[in-house]
């Protein structure tokens, strides 16, 4: 039987920036029962003609190969690149609101400093931090904030790119 170990994959998809293209990609995942851990999308060409979608997904090696092949055969897809096959950089941004006063509030600020999170808004009862990093760094920071008054999180999902001279084009 084929390998049943699950692996995570970060896949970049360069698409024609046309109406419905994101629905096509997402519909492919839901329609075929693939998993989306997170997803980002934005135009990347100067003229706005192409967008880059980055999907973090999980599956067996066979399923990951299927996902790539299925994405590649969509008509508005230029290129599919599995970044997790090689060295790559992946970053996510989170805006994190922590409510509290006193020692807990001071501790939240100290930890934020250690994680290099920026304070982008503050009141006497709250901090809003901006933190950029790999997904596991964000997860770790959020765990620390939980007992300190973590109230709300907004995360962007992963943007990723290959290391070195390799490009998607």
């Amino acid at each position, binding site marked *: 039987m084929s390998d049943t170990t699950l692996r995570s994959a970060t896949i970049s998809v360069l698409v024609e920036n046309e109406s*419905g293209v994101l629905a096509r990609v997402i519909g492919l995942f839901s329609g075929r029962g693939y998993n989306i851990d997170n997803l980002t999308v934005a135009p990347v060409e100067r003229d706005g003609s192409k967008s880059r979608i980055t999907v973090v997904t999980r599956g067996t090696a066979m399923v990951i190969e299927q996902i790539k092949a299925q994405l590649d055969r969509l008509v508005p897809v230029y290129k599919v690149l599995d970044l997790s096959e090689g060295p790559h950089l992946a970053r996510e941004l989170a805006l994190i609101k922590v409510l509290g006063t006193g020692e807990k509030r001071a501790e939240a600020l100290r930890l934020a400093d250690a994680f290099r999170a920026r304070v982008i808004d503050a009141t006497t009862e709250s901090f809003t931090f901006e933190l950029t990093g790999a997904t596991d760094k964000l997860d770790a920071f959020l765990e620390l904030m939980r007992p300190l008054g973590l109230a709300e999180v907004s995360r962007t999902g992963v943007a990723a790119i290959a290391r070195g001279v390799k490009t998607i084009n």
Partner: protein
Amino acid sequence: MDGTIAAPELMNSGAEAVLRALKAQGVDVIFGYPGGAVLPLYDALFQQNEIKHILVRHEQAAVHAAEGYARSTGKVGVVLVTSGPGATNAVTGLVDALMDSIPLVCLSGQVPTHLIGNDAFQEADTTGITRPATKHNYLVKKSEDLVRVMHEAFLVARTGRPGPVLVDLPKDILIAPAPYREPGNAPHRSYNPRTEPDPRRIEEAVAMLKRAERPVIYAGGGVINAGPEAARLLIEFTRLTGFPITNTLMGLGAYPASDPLFVGMLGMHGTYEANLAMHGCDVMLNIGARFDDRVTGRLNAFSPNSKKIHADIDPASINKSVMVDVPIVGDALAVLKALIAAWKKDSTQPNRAALAQWWGQIDVWRAKDSLRFTQPRDPGSIIKPQYAIEQLYKATRGRETFITTEVGQHQMWAAQYFRFEKPNRWMTSGGLGTMGYGLPAAMGAQVAHPDALVIDIAGEASILMNIQEMGTLAQYRLPVKIFILNNQYMGMVRQWQELLHGSRYSSSYSEALPDFVKLAESFQAVGLRAEKVDDLDRVIAEMLAVDKPVIADICVDQKENVFPMIPSGAAHNEMLLGPEHKDTSGPAVSNEGMALV
């Protein structure tokens, strides 16, 4: 880009631009149904004579008719429906074409652009609804995009793995003037399917095949889609190798059924020899088939000891359910050409002794005669459905015949007992299994081949799903023959209930059937009925002699089941054989098997 792009010519209306694009794409017939949003297109159709419009009675039938047209000609089938219900009615047909890789372009009307999203009368989110039902779809929002989209729709429909493409046309776009350009030959921006196989993979495949001791070739609808030349090369390659060959349901006719190397159809209702050859082979060459669950049976027991070579135009079909050793991405025609050349070039001698032994084994399986049945001949005996197909086949031999089917037992008997010698003569709903497919598909085939014999082999339940198309046959004098194997049951449902659900025939009896003879007559067709075995040949002869549409109501044995059968969740070597054979018990169906369809 194409260097010779002329300045666009401004057409008076988008509708005229659409028709001109259709003509440039070689379209001579459209299957459709009018409505408010497409009135400008119908008006433009009225004012020209080059494109014929066939008015169907339901939009689903328009799509199946276009499929029948496409599958019997190799051309792109074209459908025209209105907005809202027109488009939603077409959805079943679109999914059918998607599953069976049939090239279609479906034009749908849409409310004017300024009303989109307003819940306007007969508005539906057609591109949203049909996104997973098509290979690709478009909503044209600007007149300057209209003609480019039209040409692109045809390119996408017919190239790569073919499929249905929908173009949604808002009414204001059909009315406003639109620029026209001829189709260029510039490559598409993002869509460039690979058709030429990697030569290294071909060499690997040939090296594997040359050393095979128990090989089998398994060819599917991809060979038919690649055109008649691909089928010719399949014959050439198979004869060159001397290997046994089996066809899928979709591939019937890709290899001549009368050829001694042909071991019959494989899969759930395939022959004993085809399935055991698949199970026991050491090298399998799959060309243009997709390891469908109806073919593989239980995956972890599927052909357990073979090296597998899989050639397919769709990279997503490779390693989807069955891991293969040599993947080849390419068009079946290009793959076969390359295989023949590489086979001739490779000086390795195939293992003829092992092959002879393998054929000896296959002949033992063949001798089991798994399609055997007994037709009682005493006058008044009830007709066996298998016999009805066999007699129909004998009576039509030598004539240019196109067969379509509905879905169910009759479909499987047609696949088993009607023998196809050429591609594009057999049209059945393989992937989606759409009851109601056969009559409209036959209409489309008859429109494409007015002088040929076109027969819809039907069941009494399926035929009622698009029976309204009798009106279309009458209007256009299409002499389609509808050959109903009437067992008064949704036979395949009944068979599964008998085998898997303790013979509890829940809602599978065809209650309150019409009198098919009178029904035919009410649509100006000829109605015939055979109730006993001694009626059968006369009814077939009469049916074939009339140059009008005919419904032949063939009353067949209600209890007959389709055998051989690989029960759900079972392996190829766990086939059930029919009552003619002693060993009918077979394996018990597992709980997992019960959950499969």
